[in-house]
């Protein structure tokens, strides 16, 4: 685990990244906290889960958010490509339900490059596209003293090494802190062998 967290996060701009796992919403919210300016969130309108802007307020200002409800995944991709290419929105979050083909993934990458914007696809587990710059698996972790601890696995990285980090959100300082994994923290008892 030699790779530095700061090499991979904040997400590399002008690229499209992927996040999966149960903590993907949190990952998107923390990524949004790293940017300024408007934020576009594209999703399919049949999904029953909704983002709660009241909770988003602790990471970034919900008034920055533009929610786009598209009818199907084709529309989601078209809207995201348009927004990425335009460059008016620095971060575009897409919620995907079906795997991307290499062509569509590559188109998103090119659009992000043209518009100098960052894209983040929230994907179901195991549906990653080969064109993604990085892929993160985010899982919340229980900790007796902290209720924001998350484990972020960098499981794909096109320009760098993989890594695993435990991070938590520091609300008062409004920033992400990387913490050593449980068992290696000062004061904690080592796990039984």
């Amino acid at each position, binding site marked *: 685990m030699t790779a530095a967290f700061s090499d991979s996060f904040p997400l590399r701009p002008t690229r499209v990244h992927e996040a999966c796992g*149960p*903590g993907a*919403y*949190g990952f998107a*919210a*923390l990524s949004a906290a790293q940017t300024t*300016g*408007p934020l576009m969130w594209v999703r399919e*309108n049949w999904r*029953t*889960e*909704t*983002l*709660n*802007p*009241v*909770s*988003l*307020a*602790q*990471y970034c*200002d*919900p*008034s*920055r*958010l*533009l*929610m*786009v*409800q*598209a*009818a199907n995944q084709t*529309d989601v991709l*078209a*809207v995201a490509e*348009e*927004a990425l290419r*335009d*460059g*008016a*929105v620095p971060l575009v979050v897409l919620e995907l339900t079906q795997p991307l083909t290499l062509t569509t993934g590559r188109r998103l990458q090119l659009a992000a490059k043209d518009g100098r914007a960052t894209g983040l696809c929230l994907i179901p587990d195991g549906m990653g596209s080969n064109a993604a710059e990085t892929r993160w698996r985010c*899982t*919340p*972790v*229980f900790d*007796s003293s902290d*209720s*924001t601890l*998350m*484990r972020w696995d960098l499981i794909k990285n096109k320009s760098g090494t993989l890594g695993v980090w435990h991070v938590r*959100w520091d609300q008062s300082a409004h920033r992400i802190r990387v913490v050593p994994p449980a068992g290696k923290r000062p004061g904690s008892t080592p796990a039984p062998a």
Partner: protein
Amino acid sequence: MWFPRLASDRVLRLRPLDGPFALTLKQNNANRLYCLNHAAEQQGLHRDMPFADARAFCPDLQSAQADPMADQAFLLVLRRWATRYCPWVGLEQKDGLVLDITGSAHLFGGEEAMLAHMRQRLMRAGLAARIGAADTRGAAWALARFGEGVAPPGNPLPALAQLPVAALRLEDKTGIALQRLGLRTIGDLAKAARAPLTRRFGPGLLLRLDQALGDQPEEVSPLADPPHYGVRLTLPEPIGLFEDVMAGTARLLDQLCAKLLAQDVGARTLRLDLRRVDRDSQQVELRLARPLRDPHRILPLFERGVGQVDAGFGIDQLRLEAVRVDPLPARQLNHVSVTAKSQVEDLISRIGTRIGLENIQRFLPADSHIPERSFVVSPAAWSEPGSGWSSPRPRPLCLFPPEPIAGYGPRPPRHFRWRRMSLTTARAIGPERIAPEWWLEDDNWRSGLRDYWHIETRQGRRLWLYHTPQSPGWFVQGEFA
């Protein structure tokens, strides 16, 4: 020109029927007749009669609700039609038009011929109309309401002398008082001494008389034509290439935006009609996220729509109309850069042409403790970003419809299954009691009070559970980041 049965004629034009017909309007909590057709008047019904009485007199009376706004709009349509006779047309109360036909009567072969022409046209359209023509507005009004025909030029008194004094546009009270004095006709009134009349009735009565006889001036004020935001381009040769159509659109857009600028408005919805050589026409509609009048910003938004048009054998007419406009006053330049904002608005418009403008939404804060009502979703094109987000207690980042889990009692279950996962409660924070908003009807909150718990499981998932003490049950409603 007076339309005695404007409202009912308008409705009967749309839906012709035989027999007595009346429009009713609710006034002072009573349904009264508002307007009735000739057959209903023959049966002895009259205006302002209670509808129940009318039904009793005339059991086969058919009726409908009156719509005064639509009648007013219809009168404006008639006003526009009347400009075929003269350019100077104004409205006269709620059911009349006043035309200044000075200098245009000879085009129709004299006043009598012109009036006959009007009557014939209106009769064909199914409208009852009574038309009077005279030198003054007052005399024409009197003739239209109480007589018919043309007063001889020069002195309208002979034509008016036999009409009742009510034809002078007097208040009812004055009319009755004059009747009691024995002054029943305009002729009587004109012969009476003026000073006592003024002393008794004030200057208004004689003013009306003088206006009718032409001793006092009275002007006809025409209505200004509402601004029309439409331009067209007719081509000598049909075109079919995308670039050509866009070039034509650009030319029209320049003209249209100049018009919009002159009126201080911006287009909200634009429609481009492309008429083809075979008389078919194709339409491209464009809805904008903000009122706009910059041609260079609107033009790229048309590209998608125009690209989908089937040009057939070619397009020989382009017509661009701003269907909906919103006020857009000139704005002071300031030091804050506005380019970023307008860039986002252009993006919204462009996305809106693909998936519909109402599908691009913004969250606005709302004042409610109910989790799903603590924000409102509104279309980004019609709202401004709101501020004032606050939550007294942590809220989950992801909300979903409540999913039941097995659990008993007011304490959160130690082990439970949710979405086919077996979870163990490691820490529970709560309860936070939220009461339903009884003043709003909400089926989801029928189960009464909810005690919310923030549950951290040993497996990592942080869930938002609630317990309904009034109809016992446990549900998962959200997940924290």
